[in-house]
């Protein structure tokens, strides 16, 4: 009863169902109340993890391998906390956004509830088949949300996204089948000790299949093709949600399996390959972002580039000294957190500006600096986080990552990270520059409700405070 773990799964499902009962577009207030409760639950859970190390939870009382285990360690705690910290302001934002009634809200709230349940379960699950189910739940919720706008662009994006996510989970499931065939279990706790350096073809293949499936969902170059249309074409609160959190879920799984289940197979070559793809993603995403004329597409391509940045983590944690690996891990996690907050804020701010301009066009931004100073400030600060400049969490992450790369002598990745930061400055300043220009005479800005501006600002504010509280995040991370 007093344990927060089951409630983190049941509560979002419950309010999801209830808001469906309430009808189309309803349920926002219920959702926000429940999100507050969930945030408290997560805080409680994180407190427990910090106090008493990892938490295991045997669902149904049948522990692995018969039943399904949940496992909350430091990394999972950070992700859970991050999810709820991001989603609460976004929820408030979404309520206000949909009240402006620009794009159909549809069944946004029920889908959000189910999506959140999927995320929470995914972060905690220690069972690769259960993870498959959460991946499907997450994927379908995300696709459904993308489709709520209902115009051609978003339907096309949704179909493409759906097919990719199904392909991804299908391939993942094939890997699960091979693992079950090899070991007769799908529980991580059972499997981890069984996988050794020398594995059978089946297990090796399973690792590759699961990795590819998750990479498809994470949209690492060259699997990124579906992302810009899906993230750029969805209603703004959905874009923010997808870029900030949904992408992170599959990345989290890759990281988790890299460090845990498949650690014996995680060779330096594989790490270099992932890092190399990440480097290409940074380059390609940044250039494409720079060439966009629409604000949301720019932010979406920026996500492509930032995903590349995450994958630079792998060469830094594989077969290097334990100290360098630990620093890199810390940097990588802060990078995840900072990016989630910043990207959510960036999309939210972009949404406010688009509402005010009436059209998604960067060229129309001139003069917005005096109309929406707070929103522009939000956007700018989010951009600074992406560039990895002080005083943001992005900077702390970059500092740690570069420190680790320097101390393990991987200078190539140092150069990539530095270039990545500079390239992101290119597209962020493209927007800021336009916004600082004097307004065109014929431009009319529509007034915007402050309840849209403030949640977006809150997200960047949290991201800013993160740079001063990174120690706390790392404490949680280290608790596992």
């Amino acid at each position, binding site marked *: 009863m007093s344990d927060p773990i089951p409630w983190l799964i049941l509560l979002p499902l419950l309010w999801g169902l209830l808001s469906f009962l309430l009808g189309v577009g309803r349920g926002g207030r219920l959702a926000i109340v429940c999100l507050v409760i969930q945030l408290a639950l997560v805080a409680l859970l994180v407190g427990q993890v910090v106090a008493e190390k990892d938490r295991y939870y045997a669902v149904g009382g049948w522990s692995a391998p018969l039943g399904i285990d949940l496992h909350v360690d430091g990394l999972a705690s950070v992700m859970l906390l991050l999810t709820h910290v991001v989603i609460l302001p976004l929820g408030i934002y979404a309520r206000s956004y949909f009240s402006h009634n620009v794009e159909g809200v549809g069944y946004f709230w029920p889908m959000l509830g189910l999506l959140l349940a999927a995320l929470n379960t995914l972060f905690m699950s220690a069972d690769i088949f259960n993870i498959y189910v959460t991946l499907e739940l997450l994927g379908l919720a995300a696709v459904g949300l993308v489709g709520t706008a209902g115009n051609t662009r978003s339907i*096309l994006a949704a179909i493409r996204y759906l*097919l990719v996510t199904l392909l991804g989970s*299908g391939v993942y499931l094939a890997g*699960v089948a091979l693992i079950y*065939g090899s070991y007769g279990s799908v529980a991580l706790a059972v499997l981890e000790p069984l996988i050794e350096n020398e594995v059978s073809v089946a297990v090796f293949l399973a690792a590759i299949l699961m990795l590819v499936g998750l990479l498809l969902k994470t949209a690492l170059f060259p699997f990124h093709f579906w992302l810009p249309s899906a993230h750029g074409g969805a209603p703004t609160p959905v874009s923010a949600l997808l870029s900030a959190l949904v992408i992170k879920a599959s990345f989290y799984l890759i990281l988790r399996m890299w460090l845990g289940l498949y650690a014996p197979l995680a060779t330096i070559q594989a790490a270099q390959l992932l890092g190399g793809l990440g480097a290409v993603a940074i380059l390609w995403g940044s250039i494409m972002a720079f060439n966009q004329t629409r604000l949301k597409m720019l932010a979406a391509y920026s996500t492509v580039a930032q995903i590349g940045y995450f994958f630079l983590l792998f060469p830094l944690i594989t077969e290097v000294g334990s100290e360098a690996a630990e620093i890199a891990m810390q940097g990588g996690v802060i990078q995840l957190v900072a990016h989630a907050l910043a990207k959510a804020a960036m999309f939210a701010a972009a949404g406010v500006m688009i509402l005010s301009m009436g059209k998604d066009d960067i060229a129309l931004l001139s003069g917005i600096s005096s109309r929406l100073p707070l929103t522009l400030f939000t956007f700018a600060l989010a951009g600074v986080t992406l560039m990895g400049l002080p005083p943001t969490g992005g900077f702390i992450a970059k500092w740690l990552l570069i420190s680790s790369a320097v101390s393990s002598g991987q200078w190539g990745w140092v150069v990539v990270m530095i270039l990545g930061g500079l390239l992101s400055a290119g597209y962020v300043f493209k927007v800021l520059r336009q916004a600082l220009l004097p307004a065109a005479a014929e431009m009319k800005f529509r007034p915007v409700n402050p309840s849209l501006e403030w949640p977006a600002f809150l997200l960047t504010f949290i991201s800013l405070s993160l740079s001063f509280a990174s120690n706390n995040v790392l404490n949680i991370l280290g608790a596992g």
Partner: protein
Amino acid sequence: MTGALIYACVGAALFVCGVAGLILLPHLLRKILAFNIMGSGVFLMLVGLGQHDNIPDPIPQAMVLTGIVVAVAATALALAFVRRLLYLTSKAQFVANSKSLDQTEEKLITRERNKEGDASK
């Protein structure tokens, strides 16, 4: 090689056929069918691989049941999208360039406006 492994091998073959079809076939309905073939292949693999000692293993069977339900759900969602797309663009394929997309969008908006105008009369 036990009999159960034949199912797994056939499953593997179906799986790769599905994957290739999902990537290569242009028509969306075919893509959806390919996805279902892929799914069936995986389910066969799961059941076939689970049956090591020729005793039916209930765990993969339950998993496959779960998987089938998920596949049904995904198929339904995909079909709903495709029908919507068919209504919007009269095509069940991806539209390649975004310019033509904008044009169809505008056409659609005028069409809906005209309809509303008709209705109000």
